[in-house]
């Protein structure tokens, strides 16, 4: 907490910078909403099999999760890799900012920038597709999707410290599209063949979207999904911390 306090100057500047970046805003805010309109439009207004949810409601959670994922994963991995290379990370280590402050600031600002992508998808779904929920459900959905994005923020940090140079963009893209597609964020995993559904059920993105879907059905998120997401969070955070320490030793 004291680290976050020390890093508030950096968090502020990171947010300012992200909001100024049109490409980043397009991919994290506009793109998921547009995708939502297209996908929910082509798949009709019926039910998604085996979920008890309408296509717009189901896709709203998927695309909000996808948007938050985009903001935190892309925001962290590419920026960290680039800034390690340019020497900015090293420069920051010469300021009074505590060592972990950089990673914390990156994650906190990515989370703040990720919030609009969730809210905008919700607004588009409510206005364009007439998706309706109780007030507590909207709040719980926002909270769950936002909190769950931390898992992918940690993954972004890990990639940023693992990969460098030109490789970081393709690696991020493969992870990003792979997790989005196979986790069922773009189309319901229930439409997958059996073996692919088994794969999907073990992915963090699948558990992530399932949090929101449970809330939409008026339930609490399932313990299995939460446990899986927490396990991934621990794994990614541990990996990021190990890579961070390794990088710091040879900075």
């Amino acid at each position: 907490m004291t680290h976050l306090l020390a890093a508030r100057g950096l968090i502020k500047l990171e947010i300012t910078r992200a909001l100024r970046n049109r490409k980043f805003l397009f991919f994290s805010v506009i793109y998921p909403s547009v995708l939502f309109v297209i996908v929910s439009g082509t798949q009709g207004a019926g039910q998604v099999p085996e979920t008890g949810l309408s296509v717009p409601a189901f896709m709203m959670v998927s695309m909000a999760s996808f948007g938050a994922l985009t903001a935190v994963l892309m925001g962290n991995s590419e920026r960290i890799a680039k800034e390690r290379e340019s020497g900015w990370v090293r420069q920051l280590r010469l300021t009074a900012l505590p060592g972990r402050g950089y990673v914390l600031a990156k994650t906190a600002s990515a989370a703040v920038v990720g919030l609009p992508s969730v809210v905008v998808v919700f607004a588009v779904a409510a206005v364009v597709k007439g998706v309706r929920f109780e007030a507590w459900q909207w709040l719980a959905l926002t909270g769950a999707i936002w909190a769950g994005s931390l898992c992918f923020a940690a993954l972004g940090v890990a990639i940023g410290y693992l990969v460098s140079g030109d490789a970081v963009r393709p690696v991020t893209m493969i992870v990003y599209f792979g997790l989005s597609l196979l986790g069922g964020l773009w189309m319901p995993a229930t439409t997958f063949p059996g073996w692919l559904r088994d794969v999907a059920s073990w992915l963090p993105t699948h558990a992530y979207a399932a949090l929101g879907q449970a809330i939409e059905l008026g339930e609490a998120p399932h313990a299995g999904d939460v446990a899986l997401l927490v396990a991934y969070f621990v794994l990614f955070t541990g990996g990021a911390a190990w890579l961070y320490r390794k990088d710091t030793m040879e900075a």
Partner: protein
Amino acid sequence: MVRMTTTTAPPATSAVAFERVSKAYDGVPAVDTLTLDLRPGETVALLGPNGAGKSTTLDLLLGLRRPDSGTVRVFGGDPRAAITAGRVGAMLQSGGLMGEVTVRELVGLACALHPRPHPVDDVLAHADLTRIAGRDVGRLSGGQEQRVRFALATAGANDLIVLDEPTTGMDVTSRQAFWATMREQADRGRAVLFATHYLEEADAIADRVLVLYRGRLLADGTAAEIKARAGARRITFDLAGIDEAVTERLRSLPFLAGLDVSGRTVRLRSGDADATVHALYGLGIYPHNLEVAGLGLEQAFVAITEAEEAKTA
């Protein structure tokens, strides 16, 4: 060593204390059993050719690398602790800058991160950045980037300022302005340590010069002492009829740091060329084709190293 270094632990008031510090990369020593001591308020130059271990020394001082053996203390404690306490401002060549922000925003960040910040406008003015404060950091020239790094290093009240070849990429005017600012900092009682391979900079700015060569501290003294030690001038002349007696008389010349006779040609190194040449005529020796040339720093180091190796052999 010009000045004897004590083997006992340095006093707790040291700004920086290295105690037999070694660091190797893949078995190649970059810093070799280095012991040095920097007192508060001192301006010290770390002088050495490329590859002498200057950057590694500064990295160790700033806690960016850990020594293989020995201890590094900054204000009596761990280097990282001194930095997170905001007591050290540093400007490294390898330090990159955050992109997609303006100069003012970046300097503002450095001020926000410092526990005892100076006003942003003052920092900008001191680094001569006021005119370009609104410019994107990604669109600066090399010299302007150096000034931004300097601003980041001086965003708050530090007790020690560390600079790695700070004037690289600056023109003569900016260079002079830079050192004027630096002297101001030193006058306010801050310790300043800067690495350079310009003998003139060390000469003009530093109270004390540490000469580093192949990771070892070769000399520690004032600039004048170092130059005398290195034999900063080379004197070359021809002389007819050189014999043992003449060579013996040449050896008695003042400020002589090296003597080499081959055929008719005599090569001398001297810490004070004026005095040596004056004495040469005084000995009744009348040289032909007399030439006096400055010795490059690289050569000066070779001279000191040779002398050092001859001593230990």
